[in-house]
């Protein structure tokens, strides 16, 4: 075999090859930029995807600098809606304690993602040598089901890519280069938006069956819906008037990750809220919401996903490392609308047994508690702000006041 090529030939060949190499690399770079452009034009990105989570995570350095004892409630959107940190702190103060509590409730996460978030929280607390006085971790059965997991699969890689640390991403890449590289791309070049997400939520939209109300026995009241839209519009205006300084954050530090409080609102606004709660909890709306929860999260039958239950245990373990007191709690359930058959309750009991055995902590069942009634919900799962959240927060204060007012051991 001849290995000699004339120098001019060699030069020409190298030039061609350089052109091929540059075209391939640049072409892919421009294509990726195109994707990023579209994603930005659509207003998508890590902040729209996990805005509240990212803002909460970014607030941790500030949280660990707070002088008071720290309390955290960690969980799903039910925690987000059902726990009022500022009212909690005030009630504890009235009992002689001094704490600063934070609402770390996030919609759209499941324990798999919560695990990564808990690791980041743990790292920051450990790095600053700070501990929580109390963490209340919500165990949400329907967030731990197979259906819920399946629903979130298109988001899985993106969420993990955004919540994992660079070291964890490197580990993924070593373990499975293909998946690790994809996740690194999602995180560093695609701002959290994977191809699967674009396909599912953009291209896939015309092919998705609209939310169905088949199987709902109640009639939609168009006049009530019209009134609801009007009430919402007015409430929006009232919010702007009453909170002129609000910066639009998903996780607002001055509110400690919680929502507004009753004492800050005008009588007129609160009256409107009464009407609003009535309108959003019409039988029709509740029945449709229930159906949606049944389909998307298996809320009644509760077929648990073993990996999600294991991830929940890891969440607890992370908090055990940085908290003096760890409580696993189950939030109030709207028993008018969510009825679990005995088999589902047996499955739930089994999951709880597993969690208790593996964490060596009891799971406190606050699903049915006296201070919270079924008319304090804003839908089939979430407590409303000025009735449900207030009552449940007060319940938690009663429950943990003694613990929180004890002087710190020397």
């Amino acid at each position, binding site marked *: *075999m*001849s*290995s000699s*090529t004339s120098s001019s030939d*060699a030069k020409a*060949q*190298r030039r*061609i*090859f*350089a*052109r*091929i*190499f540059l*075209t*391939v*690399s640049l*072409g*892919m770079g*421009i*294509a*990726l930029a*195109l*994707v990023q452009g*579209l994603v930005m034009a659509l207003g998508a990105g890590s902040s729209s995807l996990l805005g509240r989570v990212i803002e909460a995570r970014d607030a941790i350095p500030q949280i660990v600098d707070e002088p008071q004892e720290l309390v955290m409630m960690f969980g799903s959107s039910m925690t987000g809606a059902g726990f009022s940190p500022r009212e909690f702190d005030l009630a504890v103060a009235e009992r002689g304690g001094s704490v600063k509590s934070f609402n770390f409730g996030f919609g759209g996460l499941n324990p798999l993602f919560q695990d990564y978030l808990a690791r980041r929280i743990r790292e920051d607390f450990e790095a600053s040598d700070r501990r929580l006085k109390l963490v209340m971790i919500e165990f949400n059965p329907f967030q731990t089901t197979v259906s819920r997991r399946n629903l979130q*699969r*298109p988001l*899985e*890689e993106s969420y993990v890519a955004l919540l994992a640390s660079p070291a964890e991403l490197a580990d993924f890449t070593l373990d499975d*280069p*293909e998946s690790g*590289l*994809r996740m690194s*791309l999602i995180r560093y070049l695609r701002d959290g938006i*994977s*191809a*699967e997400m*674009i*396909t599912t939520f*953009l*291209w896939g939209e*015309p*092919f*998705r*069956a*609209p939310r*169905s109300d*088949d199987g709902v026995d109640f009639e939609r009241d168009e006049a009530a819906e019209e009134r609801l839209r009007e009430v919402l519009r007015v409430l929006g205006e009232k919010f702007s008037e009453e909170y002129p300084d609000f910066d639009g954050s998903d996780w607002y530090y001055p509110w400690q990750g919680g929502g507004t409080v009753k004492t800050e609102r005008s009588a007129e606004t609160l009256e409107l809220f009464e009407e609003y709660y009535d309108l959003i909890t019409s039988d029709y709306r509740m029945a449709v919401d229930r159906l949606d929860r049944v389909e998307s999260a298996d809320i009644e039958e509760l077929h648990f996903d073993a990996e999600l239950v294991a991830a929940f245990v890891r969440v607890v373990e992370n908090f055990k490392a940085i908290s003096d007191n760890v409580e696993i709690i189950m939030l109030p359930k709207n028993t008018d609308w969510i009825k679990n058959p005995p088999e589902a309750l047996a499955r739930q009991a089994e999951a709880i047994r597993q969690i208790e055995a593996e964490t060596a902590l009891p799971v406190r069942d606050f699903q049915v508690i006296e201070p919270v009634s079924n008319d304090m919900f804003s839908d089939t799962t979430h407590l409303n702000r000025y009735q449900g959240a207030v009552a449940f927060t007060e319940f938690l204060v009663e429950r943990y006041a003694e613990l929180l007012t004890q002087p710190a051991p020397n």
Partner: protein
Amino acid sequence: MLFNTPIFFVFFVVFLLIYGLLLVQKRPRLYFILVASFVFYGAWNYKFIPLLVGSSIIDYYLALAIAAASDQRRKKLLVTASVAVNLGILGLFKYADFVLESVADFLLVFGMEASVPTLSWVLPVGISFYTFQSLSYTIDVYRGDMEPRRGLVHFTTALAFFPQLVAGPILRARQILPQFHTLPVPTWTGARHGMLLVTSGLIKKTIADLLAIPAAVLFEADGPVSLIEAWTGTLAFAGQIYGDFAGYTDMAIGIALMIGFKIPPNFNLPYFAVSPVDFWRRWHISLSTWLRDYLYISLGGKHQRVRNVMITMLLGGLWHGAAWTFVAWGFFHGLIIVATHYFGSLRTFSGFANSTSRSVALLKWALTFYLVLIGWVLFRAHSIDDAWNIFLNLHTFAALPEQGAVAGRVFIATVVAVLWMHLQDWFVIRKGEAFENRKWLFWPVLIFFQGLCLMTGEPSSEFIYFQF
């Protein structure tokens, strides 16, 4: 390491960089292709690299021995050894469990319950492709169609050449081996065409992944499906398997071209075929010509055509996978090819068969496409029973699904997707060169479609032909 993944992109960019540096040094370039191909293959399972190397060593030396053998009997013995070794390896890894389970099932028919042990071995990726490729070399040397080539490294590199290693096309030694001796350097025109093919393949593979969803609605259904869902699912699978395989092959040919190697096309607008025979001239051309040249002709070709076609197609079906559904698919295609020959030979039908009228061509196309679709049902179904139920579903009016409008949209999108892939291929074949010369249009279009593919994904994306 699929061609449409970021990791392959990284692999290929690194490959190009090093390959470019070695451009004027032939031997290091050859070794580098071999090492890169092993890295590519090893990304799936490095444990099977020795199997690939073993196959190449055996066939390389057997080919030399065949050429050196003085008497025909010895030549025959050596080529038989090559066939036995290659098919033996393939049989052991791919068909052993199928045979054992089938024996157990057969005994059960007679009330004899046999506990048959199974091997449950992992199927080495691409084994069906490279064993056939390797086999073609010894057979060609035996037949005197080509002289054996000196250079074990050349032969092994040709067999392991990463663009075509795991999913073909099944190259003949005489097509590819000489290229590893000359080691061509890429031309800009060739590379540019390669980039067009890679993009075209990427689009088809992306469409295939999307079509997997409506296909699964039919083939993974627990209960009855509506008529529209049945047709959508069947059509979607036809599109999926075409986009998947033809897309991947396009990418393989394009990647090879970008580094200077020429691989012949494997598809030629198969769903535009106007007869089953025509379909097999357009579908997986490298396999159908392999089966024709090395099996059908060896069996006697047109003498005893019915028998030979049926055997060839049955084995062709079995090549696709170790399951009775694949055998049935091969049998079905054998049957329709035989029927085509039979009706074509009848005077009553000769007018129809030889007609050049457009309406007759349309009718022949529709009939062929219908038969191909029915064949895909056999191919994709989990069992013969399932295939039969789907066949009934396709021909029984069932109520519209709950979400009729969505089902209608999915059907239309599926039709458009299948048609798009063929029109795209037609464009690349007929207008590709002219398109490549319009730089102002060519590059933006290529980048636009690459961007579009980067925005489209499905978590369960997998390449169907790897199982073969």
